[in-house]
């Protein structure tokens, strides 16, 4: 009986958010179309975590050089800075959206055409790599 209780406690502990692995999915990735000559683009998406603490460490795409950036606004001035990593808390959805955290692609190889799809790979600390497809919308698309 005692052993059973200890085992149950152990099982319960392993279900806690500290030690359970993150269970991450990526959805609704999109970007605005770009015109010839424009060398950068932003990709927006949602990351849902149904498990323990997760962390997005890197992003990559064959369309250019991808990295995590955050736009901030102070006194009407827009600033954009690189992020080294992005925490994805347990049981939460983190949105990468216009005017906030986003994937920035610089050195675009070719313009992004509205209606096309481009691949994006996200590398998480424990959950490993996830691949998603980014839907390219018209540049004038509302968010």
């Amino acid at each position, binding site marked *: 009986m005692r052993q059973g209780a200890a085992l149950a406690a152990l099982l319960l502990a392993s279900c806690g958010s500290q030690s359970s692995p993150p269970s991450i999915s990526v959805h609704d990735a999109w970007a605005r179309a770009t015109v010839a*000559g424009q*060398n950068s683009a932003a990709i927006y998406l949602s990351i849902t975590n149904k498990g323990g603490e997760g962390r997005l460490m890197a992003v990559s795409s064959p369309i250019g050089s991808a990295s995590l950036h955050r736009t901030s606004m102070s006194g009407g001035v827009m600033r954009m800075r690189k992020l080294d990593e992005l925490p994805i808390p347990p049981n939460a959805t983190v949105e990468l959206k216009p005017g906030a955290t986003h994937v*920035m692609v610089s050195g675009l190889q070719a313009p992004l055409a509205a209606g096309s799809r481009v691949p994006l790979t996200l590398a998480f600390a424990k959950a490993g790599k996830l691949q998603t497809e980014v839907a390219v919308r018209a540049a004038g698309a509302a968010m």
Partner: protein
Amino acid sequence: MRQIRIIAWVFVAVALVGVGFVLLKGPQPAPPVKTTVMSANFGGPFTLVGADGKPFESSQLDGKPYALFFGFTHCPDTCPTTLARLVKLRREAGGDGAFKIVFVTVDPERDGPKEVGAYAKAFGAPIIGLTGSPEQIEAVKKQFGIFSRKVPIEGGDYTVDHTATVLLFGRDGKFVATLAPDEQDEVALDKIERLTSA
């Protein structure tokens, strides 16, 4: 009876403190206008370069309200988001002809007439794209209180921190209001209503 006297004295004391306060502070100044860009020499005529490579005079904007936004074509997030939002708000406020949208680059080194022209066309609605010599752009930035600064990024490239506030001008060329990127659409539409009816 005693209680009433005490209460009465308390009233007198409060009144005296109030009078003293007003006397000390003197006449109250008018409440400050809620904008950072209003000044006597704000805005004014300018000459830039249009997408056709020809000079663009600000007088070409006369007779119609316009929204002025400074940005750069390699800006991945804020600039396309702001322009797409302006196009959307303009449609909600009465259609593509309700007011003009003017995009001025703060990165004339990379954005020539061809670049601003192609960029302005990408939003599926009329947008006037303007550039100019670095000196012309500096002068216009100063006129409209716009800040911008190049920031190096990896790979030898750079991005530009810049004022992302949209400036609204009435058909008489007078400043009406600003639009902030993070304000509610309802608030923005209220200002646009003032813009188009001014």
